[in-house]
């Protein structure tokens, strides 16, 4: 059972969605903030416009004569731009009376209530009394504090945006407007942002799903192929597009692994079939021979011959089974190596004695050049390798030929070489002679008996001992097999003691 949340596609999608959401949220917040600032600035500009106008208005109001400490020069808006509507008050020249402020009519539209948010104003006298006020000014409007620095100031109070300014003598003017309109604007803007954001998320998720599906498709192909291979179709391969993408490389690696698996299976199947074939031959002989013997009454010589043939076949089967078991054990690496320092020379000498009768039978002369060569290895295995090589050298030799066994130390290795004066091995067979069931020449197999496993076993044994087994051969001249195992550094001395 696989939950969708565990699928890579879903996870990519989830992360993708989350990232998109975060980016959009950040972007939205920033846009909102910018819009808010811009709206405020816009509002402030409006307020500034009005307070400047109002300020001009104040200057033309009648006011008290400036005190002696007051350095303020005459208002800049003096006679040249003098307002003909105001001369009486201006000319009054005495301090303003609270409530006496009059808004000049041409300024009235600036503070007109146009159904929406209306700008209001209030003007205070020097001593803090309300000089004048628009009718819609909010009730709890407080006189702003005079700041240290000069110039216009803005404040946000109770959802209102207000600008205020002080005249040098101390009158203060304030223009304000409710921020409700701006807030409505911002709300609408936020709504738009949210709508656009949602659209982008939907598009992004859809695109992401498409991308993820596209990216995952090769994975699906890989898993489908792998499933078919697991189902026994070992020749299946994952299609590789060759574009060098990560999944392509994965597919190539997997294909390589599948090919090796396929080859290993084929090798195993071939081995089994070869083994069955090799066993079938002696079984055929036994079955045919016994059927023949039983077909009619025979004399004892005939029975004896029949039994001899049967026994020969049984021995052949036994040797084949032993070889197969040896291979299986070596393949499985179940047998622990009993490594100890052993001298190739003494092992060689023993094996040479054992092969002597067979050699004598075929008139083959055995030579030895055995110098001490101590290595660390399993002596039984080394002995088996040596026997196999020697018996091959005797079997595949010409009558009256020679076999030379030598051992020596060379470059930190212990070497054992078996040289024969036989037929040699043709160059095209050399790479295969350590293969299982490989016979260099079919014509030599039946009469000499081997099933083609001896050298394969030698090779495996050598590798198990960490050594190497190599062959040199010249056709019609003979072959030289060399076993090379890492020498025991102080072994020679030890052996001598």
């Amino acid at each position: 059972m696989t939950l969708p949340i565990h699928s890579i596609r879903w996870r990519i999608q989830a992360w993708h969605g989350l990232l998109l959401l975060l980016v959009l949220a950040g972007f939205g917040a920033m846009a909102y903030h910018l819009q808010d600032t811009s709206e405020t600035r816009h509002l402030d500009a409006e307020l500034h416009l009005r307070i400047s106008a109002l300020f001009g208005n104040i200057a033309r109001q009648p006011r008290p004569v400036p005190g002696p400490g007051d350095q303020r020069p005459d208002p800049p808006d003096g006679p040249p731009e003098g307002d003909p509507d105001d001369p009486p008050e201006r000319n009054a020249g005495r301090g303003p009376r609270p409530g006496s402020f009059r808004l000049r009519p041409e300024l009235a539209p600036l503070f007109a209530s146009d159904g929406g948010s209306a700008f209001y104003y209030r003007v205070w006298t020097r001593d803090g009394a309300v000089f004048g006020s628009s009718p819609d000014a909010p009730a709890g409007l407080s006189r702003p504090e005079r700041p240290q620095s000069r110039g216009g100031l803005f404040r946000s109070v109770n959802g209102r945006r207000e600008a205020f300014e002080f005249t040098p003598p101390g009158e203060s003017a304030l223009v304000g407007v409710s921020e409700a309109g701006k807030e409505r604007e911002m709300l609408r803007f936020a709504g738009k942002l949210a709508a656009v954001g949602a659209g982008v998320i939907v598009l992004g998720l859809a695109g992401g799903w498409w991308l993820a599906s596209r990216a995952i498709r090769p994975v699906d192909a890989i898993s489908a192929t792998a499933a078919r291979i697991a189902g026994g179709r070992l020749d299946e391969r994952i299609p590789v597009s060759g574009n060098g993408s990560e999944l392509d490389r994965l597919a190539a690696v997997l294909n390589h692994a599948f090919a090796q698996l396929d080859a290993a299976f084929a090798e195993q199947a071939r081995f089994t079939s070869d083994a069955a074939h090799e066993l079938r031959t002696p079984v055929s002989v036994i079955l045919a021979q016994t059927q023949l013997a039983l077909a009619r009454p025979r004399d004892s010589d005939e029975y004896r011959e029949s039994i001899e043939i049967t026994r020969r076949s049984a021995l052949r089967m036994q040797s084949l089974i032993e070889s197969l078991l040896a291979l299986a054990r070596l393949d499985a690496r179940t047998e622990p190596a009993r490594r100890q320092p052993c001298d190739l020379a003494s092992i060689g000498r023993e094996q040479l004695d054992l092969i002597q009768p067979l050699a004598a039978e075929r008139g083959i002369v055995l030579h030895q050049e055995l110098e001490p060569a101590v290595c660390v290895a399993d002596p039984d295995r080394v002995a088996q390798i040596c026997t196999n090589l020697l018996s091959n050298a005797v079997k595949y030799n010409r009558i009256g030929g020679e076999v030379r066994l030598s051992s020596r130390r060379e470059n930190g290795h212990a070497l054992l070489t078996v040289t024969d004066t036989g037929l040699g091995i043709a160059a095209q067979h050399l790479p295969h002679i350590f293969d299982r069931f490989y016979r260099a020449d079919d014509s030599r197999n039946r009469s000499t008996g081997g099933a083609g496993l001896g050298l394969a076993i030698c090779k495996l044994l050598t590798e198990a001992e960490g050594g190497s087994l190599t062959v040199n051969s010249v056709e019609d001249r003979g072959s030289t097999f060399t076993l090379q195992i890492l020498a025991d550094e102080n072994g020679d001395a030890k052996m001598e003691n």
Partner: protein
Amino acid sequence: MRILIVEDEPDFLRTVAQFLREDGYAVDAAPDGEEGLYKAQETEYDAIVLDAMLPYIDGFELLRQLRLKKKTPVLMLTARARVRDRIQGLDTGADDYLAKPVDLGELAARLRALIRRAHGNAAPVIHVDDVEIDTAARSVTLRGEPVVLTAREYALLEFLTLNRGRIITRTQLYEHLHDENDTPISNLVDVHIFNLRKKLGAEFIATHRGQGYSIG
């Protein structure tokens, strides 16, 4: 009937050869493909038992080369028993394909069938006048009465019967009744003919002076 066995496993070759000889065949043996091909091309065998994996020339190649010249029935008898191999063998020109291990009785029966077919007969029992020859049981009756024949006499009768209506020379008779190790005495065929006439009637086998013998 003379048969060639091409087989590289000496014990198996010996066993099959002995079995077929005891069944009344003249048997030649070849231990490798080269010798097998040579013998198969040089001698008129009634059938050849051929192994597939042979030294020098393998069975399939031997068969291919043989088929360029001869129609001798070939039974492949080999441990290579996969369907692929059987198809290859039959398509190369083999008439039958048997896998080792083999039941010798079956091998003999298949050889009889091959030889029968090669001479255009389907039925194992052949009637010539009053004589009935059962090639499966290797028995002969004359007007319902069993006739006892020696192996050679039977082989000669069977060969003439299978080739009924044709004149068979003495040389042909020698070739088909003796294997390579026999040293046939020249008038031995005449002795067998004489004995067969005595047992089946003088008119049964016709002599064609200077040419040979015929039945039917």
